């Protein structure tokens, strides 16, 4: 997928002006946040499960080579094949190779962010193979030729009228004057259309939420059942999975699953949690005859042993973006690549480069909400700071920002000067806002004051106040 991350600022401006998107964001936020809060409240052990989840992932990452080899051995024992793909090109070639070998014409697909990362659909289309997205949200995005705007609710940015319009345009064999009385009619039409696709497909491609070393299994979690039809009906099942999806045992996976649905959709458990292990067994009446796992690295191994290693714990639940004030205003497309929100702000620079994605770790208020809801306690704000440092070191930060940072740094390293400057600043601002206590315009901060007033200081600086309180305490003691 091509990135528009360098244009984050323009993207964000457009997103804020997009009436349909703003309507969708306003509608969605209470669902995303409220449902999670309710599910977490109903499970007193949740906090402890987060700590265990973090520890399981840390243990796995520290021994990732061992667990990958163990897992691959078990996949092969169950009749499956592992395709070790160091790069996105290798992975695209491996998928296409399998599809061409079995003479595939159409390929059904379950939801997979790795698929977006690889641009599998475009690659297959270029080679005359038709990919069909079967997750309802992904299906309409494919009809509209749009990327997902969220990692678990890919089409949340669309409103009902968008669905109706797209379905009328795409399903031209149905009466043009049909009425969609309720949302259920839209769903029913998609179900009927996709049923035929499921039955005709030669290959089914799914993602994986987890890989399990102990059994050689891949796990998918869905509510619709599309992933299960995708991997059950065609003759060939291809799993797209990146190396960090690994967990050692079923018990480890179980702990992660107790966290995943609650953090993602606020469900206690998703409708279908399915463990796939190899090929159809002797006597089985259904299931694929071939089982392939495309095991993708694509830059992830290089995060090990660095300040970004913790990011590999991510289980893609989307809680961080669901609670992010920046994502909540600009939505997912503004981030310009596959992974939006705080997790995207950390992951995207590692995968496509800080020169491409430098804007993303800057698109944060550092409120810390993302880290506080992360089911595996990834220190997202800290890692965004690391990216800002790297951006600065590599001289990718814009000149004006560098100059101002240098100026601030000069003053901040001289405490006497810093106190003097803040005292003067607080005094001047306080005097300017002496009537209303706020300013509606301020030089060089037009962007900030366009949407809100700037409150002005009332009285002394923090330092002065802290010093006088300390003196007061000592006086009492």
């Amino acid at each position, binding site marked *: 997928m091509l990135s528009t991350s360098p244009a984050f600022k323009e993207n964000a401006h457009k997103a804020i002006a997009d009436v349909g998107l703003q309507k969708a964001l306003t509608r969605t936020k209470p669902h995303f946040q409220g449902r999670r809060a309710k599910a977490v409240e109903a499970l007193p*052990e949740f906090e402890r499960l987060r700590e265990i989840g973090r520890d399981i992932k840390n243990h796995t990452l520290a*021994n990732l080579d061992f667990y990958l080899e163990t897992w691959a051995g078990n996949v092969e024992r169950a009749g499956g094949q592992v*395709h070790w793909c160091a790069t996105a090109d290798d992975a695209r070639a491996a998928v296409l190779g399998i599809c061409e070998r079995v003479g595939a014409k159409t390929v059904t697909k379950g939801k997979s962010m790795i698929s977006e990362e690889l641009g599998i659909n475009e690659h297959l289309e270029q080679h005359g193979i038709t990919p069909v997205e079967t997750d309802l949200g992904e299906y309409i995005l494919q009809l509209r030729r749009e990327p997902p705007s969220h990692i678990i609710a890919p089409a949340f940015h669309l409103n009902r009228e968008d669905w109706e319009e797209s379905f009328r345009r795409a399903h031209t064999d149905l009466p043009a004057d049909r009425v969609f009385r309720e949302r259920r009619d839209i769903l029913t039409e998609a179900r009927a259309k996709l049923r035929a696709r499921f039955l005709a497909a030669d290959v089914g491609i799914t993602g994986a939420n987890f890989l399990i070393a102990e059994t050689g299994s891949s796990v998918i979690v869905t*509510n619709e059942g599309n992933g299960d*039809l995708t991997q059950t009906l065609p003759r060939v099942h291809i799993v797209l999975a990146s190396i960090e999806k690994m967990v050692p045992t079923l018990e480890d996976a179980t702990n992660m699953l107790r966290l995943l649905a609650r953090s993602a959709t606020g469900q206690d458990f998703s409708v279908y949690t399915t463990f796939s292990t190899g090929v159809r067994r002797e006597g089985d009446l259904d299931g694929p005859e071939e089982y392939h796992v495309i095991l993708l*690295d694509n830059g992830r191994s290089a995060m090990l042993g660095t300040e970004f290693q913790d990011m590999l714990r991510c289980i893609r639940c989307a809680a961080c973006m669901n609670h992010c004030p920046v994502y909540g205003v600009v939505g997912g497309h503004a981030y310009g690549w596959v992974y939006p929100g705080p997790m995207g702000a950390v992951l995207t620079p590692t995968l496509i480069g800080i020169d491409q994605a430098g804007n993303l770790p800057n698109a944060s208020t550092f409120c810390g909400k993302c880290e506080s809801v992360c089911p595996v306690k990834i220190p997202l704000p800290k890692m965004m700071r690391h990216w800002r440092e790297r951006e600065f070191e590599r001289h990718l930060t814009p000149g004006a920002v560098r100059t101002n940072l240098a100026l601030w740094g000069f003053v901040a390293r001289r405490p006497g000067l810093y106190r003097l400057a803040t005292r003067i600043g607080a005094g001047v601002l306080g005097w300017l806002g002496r009537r209303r206590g706020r300013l509606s315009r301020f030089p060089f901060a037009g962007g900030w004051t366009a949407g809100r007033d700037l409150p002005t200081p009332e009285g002394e600086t923090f330092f002065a106040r802290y010093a006088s309180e300390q003196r007061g305490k000592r006086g009492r003691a």
Partner: protein
Amino acid sequence: MSAEASPPGRPPGRVAILGAIRRHLRRGALPEDQAAMLRARLAAHPRHLIPARSRLSRAGQVALFIANVEKEFGSVARLADARAVPGAIADYLAQQNLPSEIVMAPHPELREIPWAERPLLKLRAGRAEASDLVSLQQGFAAIAETGTLMLPAAPERPTTVNLLADTALVLLRASRIVGAYEEAWDLLRAERRDPLTGGFMPRNVMLVTGPSRSADIEQTLELGAHGPRRLHILLLDDDEAARATPESVPK
């Protein structure tokens, strides 16, 4: 056999990925004593914290299971024994205004049901097809913690029977309801042998919690996305202890 993505001039994928991991972890392959510890962890597959909510009497676990199925938009009929099954199914299908043609998993437990008592039910044993409207599956086990069915694939338990029909019926014995997922994994570990791997894991294990749904259209929940729109569980009360009054009515 492992397929290696190995474009000319570069090491095969497996070597490249494992090498990169070890390089960044600043070590070589794990020393034998550490690998042995990890193998021991896999063999012991230790449990982690299990939420207290399912730590109940047998009757309490069954009540919790039913409450959770209903919370997730499924339904449950409690039946005294297998003889009550044909009548219960006929009544349910009539109530829902559904046809009485059923595709049934070819499981001995389902075959042994005295179907002849309800000659109007038309049963076909086998895998499900897209045209099937009603299916009947055999439940291997169920988890009270979240109202979840465990359905491992087997010749007598085809996966398509879980997925293709509009209305999915599942026969479940109350004695197979456990508290937590870990206990269901233990049943699978103890009772199943896979013909291909010699391990316990079948090709496919589905954990099913309620009927299929989607909230992709304006974050509003609609049932019956690609899988069944209705999930109805026929619960056989074969567990004496589970028939007692539960200690509390779970939320």
